[in-house]
């Protein structure tokens, strides 16, 4: 499967790697995601923004398999992944970071990253890959420290390391910059920009400064549906968007 995915990646850079058609998620009477059509091309970096309760995270969970959509479909590189389990989606080569930090607290940084690499690589290759990722993300001094003892920013960085270690072609990040210091955010955007060289990236984010710093195309969610889709500068200048989202801040 990895081979097919690789070949597909080389053949056309503008190929659509992620697509949803009429994706709808209802919780009882609440429509959290309303008929969302979404397309992402290979190598693209896309941010999903919107006020609280706009349905960003629900949409995110429907793509990653953490939720099964009420109706509509999800496609990834030609596979229909609607209703798949998270491990099947991840097994395709999709790197996922959830909103709540999900790490193995009792294990050290190396073991965490090794496990992510081991899923797709042999034992010795996974060891090599883990060391390489640790060096790249400057985690060396804390490589043998348990995750439970690390600071929040470090933990976020390790979780990105888990994603990077699997060499994904599609990366889905839910609020990677949440609660991080300016230094950490800066470092985070460097890592993400590096990721876009080999993967398409979708980021759910609140932090507008962070979104500007990675300067990408933005999809605005409002009441479960897509409000508009454009470059970050034009989106921020748009009066409707200012009204539903940014207006609340001012």
């Amino acid at each position, binding site marked *: 499967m990895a081979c097919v995915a690789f070949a597909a990646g080389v053949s056309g850079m503008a190929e659509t790697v992620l697509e949803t058609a009429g994706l709808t998620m209802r919780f009882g009477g609440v429509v959290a995601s309303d008929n969302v059509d979404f397309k992402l091309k290979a190598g693209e970096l896309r941010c999903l923004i919107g006020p609280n309760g706009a349905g960003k995270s629900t949409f995110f969970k429907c793509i*990653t398999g953490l939720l099964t959509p009420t109706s509509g479909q999800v496609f990834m590189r030609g596979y229909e992944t609607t209703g798949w*389990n*998270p*491990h099947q989606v*991840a*097994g395709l080569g999709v790197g*996922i970071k*959830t909103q709540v930090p*999900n*790490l*193995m*607290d*009792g*294990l050290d940084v190396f*073991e*965490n990253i*090794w*496990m*992510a690499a*081991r*899923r*797709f690589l042999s*034992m010795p290759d996974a060891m090599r890959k883990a060391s390489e990722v640790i060096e790249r*993300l*400057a985690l*060396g*001094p*804390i490589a*043998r*420290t348990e995750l439970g003892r690390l600071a929040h920013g470090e933990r976020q960085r390790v979780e990105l390391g*888990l994603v990077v270690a*699997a060499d994904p072609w599609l990366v889905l990040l839910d609020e990677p910059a949440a609660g991080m210091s300016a*230094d950490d955010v800066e*470092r985070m955007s*460097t890592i993400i920009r590096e990721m876009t060289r080999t993967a398409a990236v979708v980021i759910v984010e609140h932090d507008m400064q962070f979104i500007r710093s990675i300067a990408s195309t933005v999809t605005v969610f409002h009441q479960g549906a897509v409000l508009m889709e454009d470059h970050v500068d034009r989106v921020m200048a748009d009066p409707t968007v200012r009204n539903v989202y940014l207006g609340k801040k001012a």
Partner: protein
Amino acid sequence: MATFWTKEVPATILVAALLIWIMPMIVGTFTLTVLVIYGMLGFSLGLIWGFGGILCFGQAAFFGLGAYTYAIAAINIGDSTIPMLLAILVPAAFAALLGAMMFYGRLTDVYLGVITLVVTLILFKFISSTAGPEYVIGKARLGGFNGIPGFQTLNVPGRPNDYIYGDPYFYFCAILLIIVYLLVSWLLKSSFGRVAIGIRENEVRVALMGYDVSARKTVLFSIGAAIAGLAGALFANWGEIVTPNLFSLGQSAEIIIWCIVGGLGTRIGPIVGAAGLAYLKFLLGQQSMIDNTLLTGIILVLFVLFLPKGLVPAIGSLWKVSFGRRRRFPRHGVRRLRGRSVGHG
């Protein structure tokens, strides 16, 4: 992995050989045998609970199933070799089915505990009610509450009249425990074992990394049941009778207490806990001043209050404080190094 074969295996064998040599001078081999068997039973739960995070309230079900499988097969077959293998395979297969149902159904901890508990109860009730002559498997009558006596006990493979009993049986059980211990140690060092520990730490994360958590938990659960089944077969041979009490809730609860007292998340802890508490129970059984279960309860409460991690981890950390070298970076050292590396991050 390299140090496993050169250091851990020889060290384990050496320590175990010393114990096998010395212990019979202190405790009779008949009692020792059952302590070893309980050790193996405790070890089976220690594996799936301590390393897989699966709290099974019904480990006694697999223990009893192993014992009954052995007894029934031994009556029908005669030679003990195939019954021993069946006593491992049947509980493993049963656990695989039960586990698949629970883990693919995404049951969380509490429901898992309830279901395993209920399965134990059902088996206990069912086996207890099989006194009638219609409950026959081949030549073996299930015998209801009286159990099954008089089956072929362990013999040299292929020679049904050469029984293994007494001292040799103790050595046989002890060596089996060492083999199981080493196999499990190897498993825990392998990728499968390390991912299992990852599942214990954070199931969602392991699934998001692309591992099939349900399948892996089912396999681990089944391995635990296989070890419990083997312990059951050894117990059947030791007691020369199997009764429904093997499935009792008391038995299940005791296994959990062994693990807590001995130390969860260690390999040796549940074995030490099982053998230690079982020996204590044996000593207390010789007097009638204090009630046995009351004392087991008091021990559990004291451990939960004062040594919540259990005996073995407590001794381990005491050892480290007194003799061990500190291997980790001191925390302030890490901060300093990290501050310097910010520039090229």
